[in-house]
């Protein structure tokens, strides 16, 4: 292996460990820091924030994270790729540039800004031209919910990331670029991979998938021998060392906690997996049944043999739309007969909701400590359990019944079964439900609209 490019994961989701980016930059040699912030519903949360304040709509944690590491990035020549831009990548880019100027780095930091994934303002035009944007799960056309759409973004691939890097960007800020594209882009750029070199594209995609959830590949949330994973309090986030032939090593910085082994990498590989022969991205399709893993020393797993096939003509679109309202109320019942008391309380609550004539799409009761995660597979609840939490959720299209439900929890404390506590938090909040609508669109409708700008601090 002649040339090696190191891409390190700095964040696996919006809300991940704030210490990770600095440790990745300072703990050992890396070429790129990849910061993934976007999950399926994140865009709609950001859209909601932006509608209240046009200066928001991106992962705001990204700015202080950059502030902390900008001097290191500049000194070491480390570049960053991130989809922190959310639904407002321009505001995110401006905030980072402003931070750089304040730190005396004017003229030394260039931000690559990628736009064109946001198609909210183009939906009617697309629908009018016959693109139905049908829900991939239910096959219903978008017109069913058009008036309730809150955000709509096409998943972009590596191409604009590569263009930004070619243009000299030190920090690439995107909206809805795929998680894997943030890793694949730098690899293809540095190693000169052709866009139709399907095996290498697949290798870079698998590398991206392995590190896109941060420490979930390096000992975090690892089930196998979990009690033997050491040092999670200083867990090392994963990084990949990619060779030009598409063979790579997953590892982490020396002296960090956690573990990189066959088990940790395999658990991450199967995470959110569909058909393993067909992991579809905008850049190509990876065949996960061709992946070969070998342990190559402590905390080093070699990944090789990956095969890929050509990309499709379609891009995935992530649409978020207003669905309705929900609320979840909880109370804790203590021994003796904790489960029986919680069950009796549920009966009282449901009867009151019925007597009030409230209409819900669903009322769901779970008994935490008895059946919440495994349902009937958990077996008969332990009559001697020290406590059981009653957890009742309701969902409705209208707000009023959900609002009324939130006022029916507290009264149970003095008007229901005994030995109840755990209501210090007050009334449950009514939450607006913004649901997810996955669809496909012809990539020729999107790609001509993608723009890459290089902005200087």
């Amino acid at each position: 292996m002649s040339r090696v490019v190191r891409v390190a994961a700095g964040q696996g989701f919006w809300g991940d460990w704030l210490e990770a980016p600095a440790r990745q930059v300072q703990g050992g040699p890396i070429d790129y820091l990849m910061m993934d912030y976007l999950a399926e519903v994140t865009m709609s949360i950001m859209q909601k924030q932006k509608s209240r304040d046009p200066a928001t709509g991106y992962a705001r944690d990204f700015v202080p994270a950059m502030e902390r590491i900008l001097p290191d990035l500049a000194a070491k020549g480390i570049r960053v790729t991130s989809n922190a831009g959310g639904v407002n990548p321009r505001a995110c880019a401006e905030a980072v540039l402003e931070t750089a100027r304040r730190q005396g780095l004017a003229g030394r930091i260039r931000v690559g800004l990628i736009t064109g994934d946001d198609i909210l303002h183009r939906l009617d035009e697309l629908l009018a031209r016959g693109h139905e944007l049908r829900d991939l799960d239910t096959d219903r056309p978008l017109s069913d919910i058009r008036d309730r759409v809150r955000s709509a973004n096409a998943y972009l691939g590596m191409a604009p990331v590569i263009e930004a890097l070619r243009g000299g960007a030190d920090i690439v800020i995107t909206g809805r670029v795929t998680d894997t594209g943030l890793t694949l882009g730098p690899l293809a750029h540095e190693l000169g991979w052709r866009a139709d070199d399907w095996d290498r594209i697949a290798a870079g995609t698998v590398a991206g998938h392995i590190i896109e959830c941060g420490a979930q590949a390096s000992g975090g949330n690892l089930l196998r021998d979990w009690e033997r994973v050491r040092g999670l309090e200083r867990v090392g986030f994963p990084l990949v060392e990619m060779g030009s032939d598409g063979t790579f090593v997953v590892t982490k910085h020396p002296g960090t906690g956690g573990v990189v082994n066959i088990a940790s990498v395999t658990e991450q590989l199967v995470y959110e997996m569909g058909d393993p022969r067909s992991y579809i991205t905008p850049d190509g399709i990876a065949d996960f049944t061709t992946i070969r893993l070998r342990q190559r020393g402590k905390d080093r797993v070699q990944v090789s043999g990956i095969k890929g096939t050509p990309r499709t003509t379609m891009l995935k679109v992530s649409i978020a739309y207003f669905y309705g309202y929900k609320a979840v109320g909880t109370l804790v019942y203590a021994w003796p007969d904790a489960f029986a008391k919680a069950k009796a309380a549920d009966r009282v609550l449901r009867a009151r909701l019925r007597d009030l004539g409230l209409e819900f799409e669903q009322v769901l009761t779970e008994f935490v400590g008895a059946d919440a995660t495994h349902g009937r597979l958990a077996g008969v609840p332990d009559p001697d359990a020290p406590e059981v939490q009653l957890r009742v959720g309701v969902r409705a299209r209208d707000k009023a019944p959900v609002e009324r439900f939130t006022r029916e929890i507290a009264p149970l404390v003095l008007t229901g079964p005994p030995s109840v506590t755990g209501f210090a938090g007050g009334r449950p909040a009514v939450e607006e439900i913004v649901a997810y609508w996955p669809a496909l669109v012809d990539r020729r409708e999107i790609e001509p609209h993608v723009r890459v700008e290089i902005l200087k601090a």
Partner: protein
Amino acid sequence: MKGSVPVQLRWLAHARSGDKGNTANVGLIALEPDWYPLLVKQVTAARVARHFRGMVSRVERFELPNLAALNFLLHDALDGGGTISLKTDAQGKVYSTALLRMAIPVPRAVARRARGGRTGG
């Protein structure tokens, strides 16, 4: 199977799960590579569907012999999934552990090697 004993999958495999809309996926990984054929033979889509009876609508299975792993798609497992679901585990993060409750018949020699030599289910 003659001469075999039931062993819970928790002693034979590890697992991780995730979601895609209202579908949960469970990746089931053999703890020892030579136990993978046992999983292929015993942990069929039909048996997993029976295990999750009333909790999922349909089960698909994919084989990854290179990783000694099976991937299961459990359709309609998440009560609407994503933000719609009212479940604690709306995104199926721990659905994997519910599969590990299932017991399969394995040869006595394998049962003895399985963690702690425990049997059950």
